[in-house]
């Protein structure tokens, strides 16, 4: 039985806790967050061992792993403390607001052979995993260009109170949304060699950006555009879409479908010339316990599996996630603010 400690019991923390609590081989041993109605509720109704701060939890409870779902500016400090206790770590994205520090933490985790995973959940989505495989098999030939968009209607008015409205806490659509988009791009195409045309734009927020756009350049000979905004009310929920143009065709993928256009038949893959359409309903695989989306369950089932099988070069590792942090830092540094 693996014993888990949870730092942060907000929306994501509770979702992770629910998924892991439902796994047969996992025990929710303790949690830490500042005292609130939620924490006293969990204490009373779940009988959860709640601590007001994570240090006390790490000191007093014997754990195998921690799940960290706190505001982004606190990730590095808590990860460092958990590494000090030799715990396997699952931390929400973005990994670290300071990429140099993030790289140091990645090295420590690797040195100690601890599972180190960041909550880049799109890497566990059936259709994006499928597209990664198709690109590896050069289905559309040499890649020439991609467009990656992530849009949602999370912020459609200014709210100065929430931590997501504070730049130094890792608020803003850069870290909250763009981190997912940039990580997905790195997952599919690798880290860009250079970013140009970086723009951050305010729409509703007073202190943080609501829109990010950038052009990614690759020495391998292709380019890509990213556009991310959390201030588009026309989206019922956050939506990610990637369009990839290759010499021999095109792929358009989102969470529901994957459309493949080929200039000629591909017998090897069973695709015909023209459009080939696959739906999530054709590809979806069941999970042990569903709380929010298959990919949310799968990333945690994978995390537990990695601990049990001592797999430390895991998907969405600290090292991979630091690349996203470096790109985000570059976009921020180079960006024109509007």
């Amino acid at each position: 039985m693996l014993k888990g400690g949870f730092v942060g019991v907000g929306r994501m923390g509770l979702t992770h806790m629910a998924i892991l609590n439902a796994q047969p081989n996992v025990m929710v041993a303790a949690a830490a967050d500042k005292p609130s109605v939620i924490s006293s509720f969990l204490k009373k109704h779940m009988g959860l061992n709640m601590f007001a701060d994570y240090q006390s939890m790490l000191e007093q409870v014997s754990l195998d792993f921690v799940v960290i779902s706190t505001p982004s500016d606190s990730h590095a400090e808590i990860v460092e403390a958990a590494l000090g206790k030799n715990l396997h770590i699952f931390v929400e994205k973005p990994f670290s607001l300071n990429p140099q520090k993030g790289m140091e933490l990645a090295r420590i985790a690797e040195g100690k052979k601890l599972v180190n995973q960041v909550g880049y959940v799109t890497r566990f989505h059936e259709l994006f995993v499928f597209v990664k495989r198709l690109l590896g098999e050069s289905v559309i030939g040499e890649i020439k260009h991609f467009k990656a968009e992530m849009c949602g209607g999370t912020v459609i008015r200014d709210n100065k109170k929430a931590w997501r409205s504070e730049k130094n806490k890792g608020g803003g659509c850069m870290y909250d949304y763009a981190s997912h988009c940039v990580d997905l791009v790195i997952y599919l195409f690798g880290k860009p060699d250079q970013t140009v045309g970086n723009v951050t734009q305010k729409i509703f927020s007073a202190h943080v950006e609501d829109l990010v756009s950038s052009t990614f350049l690759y020495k391998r000979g292709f380019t890509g555009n990213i556009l991310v905004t959390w201030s588009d009310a026309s989206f019922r929920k956050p939506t990610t879409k990637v369009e990839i143009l290759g010499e021999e065709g095109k792929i358009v993928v989102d969470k529901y479908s994957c459309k493949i256009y080929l200039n000629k038949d591909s017998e090897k893959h069973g695709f015909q010339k023209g459009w080939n359409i696959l739906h999530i309903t054709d590809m979806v695989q069941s999970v042990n316990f569903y709380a929010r989306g298959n990919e949310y369950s799968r990333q945690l089932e994978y995390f537990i599996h990695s601990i049990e099988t001592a797999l430390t070069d895991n998907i969405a590792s600290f090292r991979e996630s630091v690349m996203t942090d470096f790109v985000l830092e570059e976009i921020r540094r180079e960006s024109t603010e509007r």
Partner: protein
Amino acid sequence: MEKIIFGDNQFFGINHMSEERAQALAEKFRDLKAITDVLKTAWDVGIRGFMLNSNDRAKEICDFLRKNKESFEGLRLYPSIPYPHKYANLVTEKGIINTIRDVLCSENTAKESLGLIWKGGAFFSSGGDATKIMELLIDVEMQVFRELNVEVVFLQNVVTDLVLGLGLKEVFIHYYAYIKEKYNAEPGFITMNLPKLVAFLTEVCGLDNPIVCSPINKRGYFMNPSAEACEEVIAKRKFRPVAMSIYASGAIPPKEAIEYISNQKNINAIVFGASSKKNIEETIGLIKQCSD
């Protein structure tokens, strides 16, 4: 319970198969009249049960149903509460506690405000008794359906599965009792984890023969942990299964989909959504054909 319940996902731009289809639905049903026309069509075909999630569009639809009560004599509503995305966006923006406070303040209409204020007072004086918050939130959500004939109130799957995952049995027990007592309706639960929920409700919470709505379809789409495990529970456990996602958002041909459902014995009701007269009639025809 009605054997056939007309679902509402199509009205709100929800389709699990494609973003474009979802977008097209959102465009088609932008005007309330487009929605009410489909509801009338379903009514004329003989459907009397309607499921409605407590979102902003549901308010308009319920206003329409109240205004046209005489045309919908015998209507049976099957609300699902809450609308999760409203809370998800607010929670992201403000945190859990501020969201609860804001929802209670902003959605509190003058007429029902007294009761809510009284309960709100009870909540704060009790030092944050969570069951009081839950009652308040249920009351806010249920205002949408006031004066309409509500038969079953379903707890939406995002909430059900979170509570199930955390193992908070008091929440289910209290929800069950409160819906029966206050709304004189049957409590129901929507889930994506059928076997686990049925075991938890009956064995841990001690609820007898609960109504549980979950995806049941030939593809095994959203049947966790597996289609076989769900089929076994339906065949063997004592509860009232309600099937949803029977077409897996259009991935399964109608005849195959209905045949599969008919072969699962014990299913109490089928929830299905459609946006054209042809599709509504086709489904009804197939259900009748298979049940003969």
